[in-house]
Structures are given as C-alpha cells and as structure tokens.
C-alpha cells in the first residue's frame, strides 16, 4: 500500500472503475505476499478480489471457473531461454499441469490445470532457474516481446538482449509501474524484418540510424499506441531517435505518461492506444518530453519488410560456422516430454540455448555446421519439425473454449484439422498465414493474418453450432494493415472447404511473385466477397 495516496487519480475516486478502486487499496504485487496464505486456504477460500489480483502473480482462472484450476503464464523476455529453464518448465507442467505446454504470441509459456495449492512450490522452482510468472497478466508491464534471434541475427542492427534486460529491470516488479490503467505491452527489436510486430504493441522500439555530428549512429525509432483486442489500433511513430543507451529512459517515460494520463474510468478505453488516438502523437510526444526532455528527431527507418515472426528451417547465425534451427510447434502446443526433449537436443547439438517465437514456435540455436544433419535426424523433429508443410507451418491459434472463459468456440484442434486439410488439398509454394480466435478479443492476433478466423455460435434447428467470420489481407511492416472482414458467417464444418476455395482463387489468379496480401490489394476485397458468396451458395446451401 506504499503508494496508495500519492497517485493523482486517487484524488477523485468517483471517476474510477471497480478494478481501479481495488488496486488503490491493494496493489497487484501485494498478492505475492499472500500466496502462501491463499495456497494454504485453497481455491474455495479465494475471493473475487483475490482472483482479480492473482493475475499479477501470472495466474488466471481457467474455464470453468468453479473447478479451481488456473492457467499459468511464464514470462520469457525476448524469447531467450536456456535448456535448464525449459527442462524445469517441462517438469512443472508434468507434475502440476497435465503435461501440456503452450507457447504464446508474446513468447511466453502457458501451463494449464494448475491449482493454487501448488503455486508456492511452482514459483520457488521457477525462481531457481530465473523464470517468473509475476506480472505476466494484470494491469502492468507484460512480457517484453523481442527479436528471438537477438545476438545471433545476421539481420539485426544490434544485439537487443541487454536492452530488453535493462528495460525489464527498470519497470518489472516495480511498484511505480504495477498499477497501470490496463495491460501494457512492449516490443524491442533491431531486426530489419520487424520480427517483434512493433505496430501492435503499446510501446515499440524499431531499428533506425541517424547521422549525428557526421557520424551514423545506430539506434531506434519509437512507436506508441498499438494494440489489437476488439478495437485494433496500429501504433504510431514519434518524431524521435533514441540511442541504445537511452531506451530505458524513453521506456520509463512512456510508461509514466500512461500511468499518469491513461484512462481509468472505463476499462474498455484504458489501453494506451485510446490516449494516443485522442491526443495524437504530437501531443503525446510533447507530454513525454516533459518527463524525459527533448530527443533528436527521427532518423532513417531500417525496417525493410516483415518476416511475420517465422524462422523455420536451418539458417546461418551471424557467428561464423553456427546455425539456428527454427522448429514449428503445431498451433503452439506441445507436451512436457517434447519440451524436455527439445532442451536435451539444445544441450546435445547446440550450447543449450532455445528461443520462443511470437508465432508460437521455438528455435534451437548455436548448432555447429557438422552437427546440423544429426539434429535434423532426431525423431522429435518429425512432429516439431523445421520443415513444416505450408499451412501447418503458418498457423496461429488462441487457447479457445478448452480453457478460456470468454471463448465461444474451440480453436487449436480445429486449426490443426483445417491446416492438415489445406496442406493435403492445395499445396502452395508461398506461405499463407492463418490465425484463429475463439472470440473478438485477440490472443490469436487474427487481425494481422493473411486469413483470420473469428469464432461465434449460431443457432440452428439442431442447436448451437460453431461458426467463423473470415477476414482477409492483414499485414505488419511497411504497408501495415489489419485484415478486412468478409460478410457471411461460415459454419465451422464448412470452413476448410471455404478456405480451400478462397486460396485456390489466389493460387489461380495471382501474378508471378505476388504474395497473398499483394493479391488482396490488387483484386480487392469485393472480389473475395464475391468468391465467398459463390462458395457459400454452393457449399452451405447445396
């Protein structure tokens, strides 16, 4: 309660929502002092307030809430992980989480089936390998997304690992920032292909250079106000060039602006994106400069494209003679045995280093050239493969109705079946990124997909049936745009056939070298709408 009365917004509580009032009386991080007591009392004794604040401990009631199980999210800043950490996550999953491990779109691990009674032991074991769940959920700085290739990337301007660590040290578990108006997402990357999805974060740093005093300086540009959820916003760039050693200062400043000026009356308008949209970037920068002083104006953007966060296959590191192997984890889900197996492979063939990706995949790094072939022959790499089929290798899925209280449809297993069907029926030589989400929120980031699927339920004479809205043409990087929803909700059972027809339309009509996004831009959404109408008339009615 150290800061209870110092916050400006506490002066007029009548303007605060219920969660804000709770946070004023009990900071989210206070729950960490109560974990032992709550664990001893058991699930039945948890109050609504406890459940709300347990998000700061990184756990979230899983569906159905009354059964007493939790989802547990483990932070992995920039996706950088070692085999000892991976092995411990696997063991904890096996002992307390029914051997299920998900990789998330923010490079975290998520476990399920965790009970409050086991949390003290789990937190202790995670801390022994320097992993933490704290502030992985809640109104606070979430896991910092970064370039999973940081330090080994031939396409990065600088190694961002020390910067991510410095920002994390400055703002994570810091009571100055543990009561933000809402969740707060940071991305830091110097990869020139926008590996960390800058535009969909509250705050992002992207690679840039600037001539200063006759010398080309490598640094960053700063983006604010991005985010997805049910009202997606692209982040906007400030007129500011930041040297690497000043990233922490800017990150702290932006976080203070959000803390002090972010909206706390309505939770659905509390994300930083709403403040930035209302103020505009000029005013935002003016206020920010009041906290951190003036910075040089923007320099030259160094982002030249978007790799969408995919790294499957065998690739050279910037270190001579070393390779990283990008592995596809189907819809981001693996077993504890598989994760432990990957840790063993990282030790056997590399230097024990692994990286998680924001596409729910995983990398093994530092593999010498003479060991690559043997690694590729390992049985585990038959399923967690570096050479996935086109659709299987570019599929992202939210958790879905299996565990999420707000989901309306099942997602992961459905996506697995959809991509298996498409890979069988319509082999393609270029990737088409499919994302699926079980509700209008955006854990599966459906708005940035080439083809996004959003779940709903439809009433039919046979009862409730799952159905999906289809949106096309999303992209980040240069020319970033969210995808556009087509009219016509597709019954789940027909989704594979409808997608097959839409993708065949692209395959048959594309020009040489034209990717899916460029094709959508050229032919227009109306052409896809006409195709969808035609397919629905044939398939659903026929």
């Amino acid at each position: 309660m150290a800061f209870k009365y110092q916050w400006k917004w506490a002066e007029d509580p009548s303007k605060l929502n219920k969660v804000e009032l709770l946070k004023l009386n009990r900071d989210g991080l206070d729950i960490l002092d109560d974990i032992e007591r709550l664990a001893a009392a058991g699930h039945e004794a948890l109050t609504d307030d406890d459940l709300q604040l347990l998000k700061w401990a990184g756990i979230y009631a899983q569906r159905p809430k009354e059964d007493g199980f939790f989802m547990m999210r483990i932070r992995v800043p920039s996706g950088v992980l070692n085999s000892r950490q991976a092995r411990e996550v696997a063991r904890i999953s096996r002992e307390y989480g029914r051997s299920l491990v998900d990789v998330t779109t923010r490079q975290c691990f998520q476990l399920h089936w965790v009970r409050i009674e086991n949390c003290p032991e789990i937190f202790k074991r995670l801390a022994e390998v320097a992993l933490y769940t704290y502030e992985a959920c809640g109104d606070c700085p979430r896991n910092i997304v970064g370039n999973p290739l940081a330090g080994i990337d031939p396409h990065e301007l600088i190694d961002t690992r020390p910067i991510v660590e410095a920002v994390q040290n400055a703002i994570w578990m810091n009571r100055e920032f543990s009561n933000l108006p809402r969740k707060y997402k940071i991305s830091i990357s110097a990869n020139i292909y926008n590996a960390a999805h800058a535009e969909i974060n509250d705050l992002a740093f992207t690679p840039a250079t600037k001539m200063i005093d006759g010398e080309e300086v490598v640094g960053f540009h700063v983006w604010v106000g991005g985010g997805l959820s049910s009202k997606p916003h692209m982040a906007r760039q400030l007129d500011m060039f930041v040297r690497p050693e000043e990233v922490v200062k800017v990150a702290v400043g932006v976080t203070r602006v959000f803390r002090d000026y972010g909206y706390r009356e309505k939770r659905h308008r509390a994300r930083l994106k709403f403040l930035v949209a209302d103020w505009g970037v000029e005013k935002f920068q003016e206020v920010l400069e009041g906290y951190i002083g003036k910075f040089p104006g923007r320099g030259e953007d160094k982002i030249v494209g978007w790799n969408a966060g995919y790294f499957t296959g065998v690739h050279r590191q910037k270190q001579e003679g070393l390779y990283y192997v990008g592995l596809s984890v189907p819809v981001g889900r693996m077993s504890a045995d598989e994760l432990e197996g990957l840790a063993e492979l990282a030790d056997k063939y590399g230097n024990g280093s692994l990286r998680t990706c924001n596409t729910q995949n995983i990398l093994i790094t530092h593999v010498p050239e003479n060991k690559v072939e043997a690694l590729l022959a390992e049985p585990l790499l038959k399923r967690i493969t570096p050479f996935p089929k086109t659709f299987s290798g570019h599929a992202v899925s939210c958790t879905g109705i299996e565990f999420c209280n707000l989901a309306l449809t099942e997602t992961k297993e459905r996506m697995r079946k959809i991509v298996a069907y498409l890979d069988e029926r319509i082999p393609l030589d270029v990737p088409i990124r499919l994302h699926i989400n079980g509700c209008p929120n955006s854990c599966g980031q459906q708005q940035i997909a080439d083809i996004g699927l959003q779940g709903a339920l439809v009433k039919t004479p046979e009862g409730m049936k799952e159905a999906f809205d289809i949106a096309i043409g999303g992209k980040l990087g240069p020319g970033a745009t969210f995808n556009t929803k087509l009219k016509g909700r597709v019954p789940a059972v027909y989704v594979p056939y409808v997608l097959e027809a839409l993708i065949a339309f692209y395959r048959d009509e594309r020009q040489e070298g034209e990717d899916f996004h460029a094709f959508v831009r050229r032919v227009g959404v109306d052409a896809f709408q006409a195709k969808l109408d035609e397919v629905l008339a044939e398939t659903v009615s026929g």
Partner: protein
Amino acid sequence: MAEAGWYLYRLEARLNDGRLVTVVVAAANEEKAFQYAESHLERDLVFRSHVAELSLVEKKSLHPGVGYAVVTAEV
C-alpha cells in the same frame, strides 16, 4: 451486484430483409443466452420466422458497468 458465473452476451440477428439487429442479454450460459435473445426479438421486434440467422458473437463477465457499444448507423 455482480452475478457470479454470469455473462453479458452480444448476439446478432440477421433478418430476412437484410437488416442486422444486435441483442444484448445477461445469462448464465450460451444456451440460455440464445433463449433470452429469441424472447426479446419476438417480444420487441419480429416473429421468429423473420430471423434468418441468430449468432452469439461475444461474451463478457457480468459486473456493474459492463456493456457493449454497437454501431447502428453511419452518422
């Protein structure tokens, strides 16, 4: 008062004449949400036979202040 385990559901009814109607109901589960939405549609607006498709598109935990903003027409 918050209702433990209840949700505020948003449904969309596409009518035979092409209009789209948004229905918001509080219910304990999806099945009930559909039932309540159909009742509201029939009581306030149209016969059941006029509804071409009824879909449940979003749910939120029920507590004071929870709601939806819905676009009804271009201004």
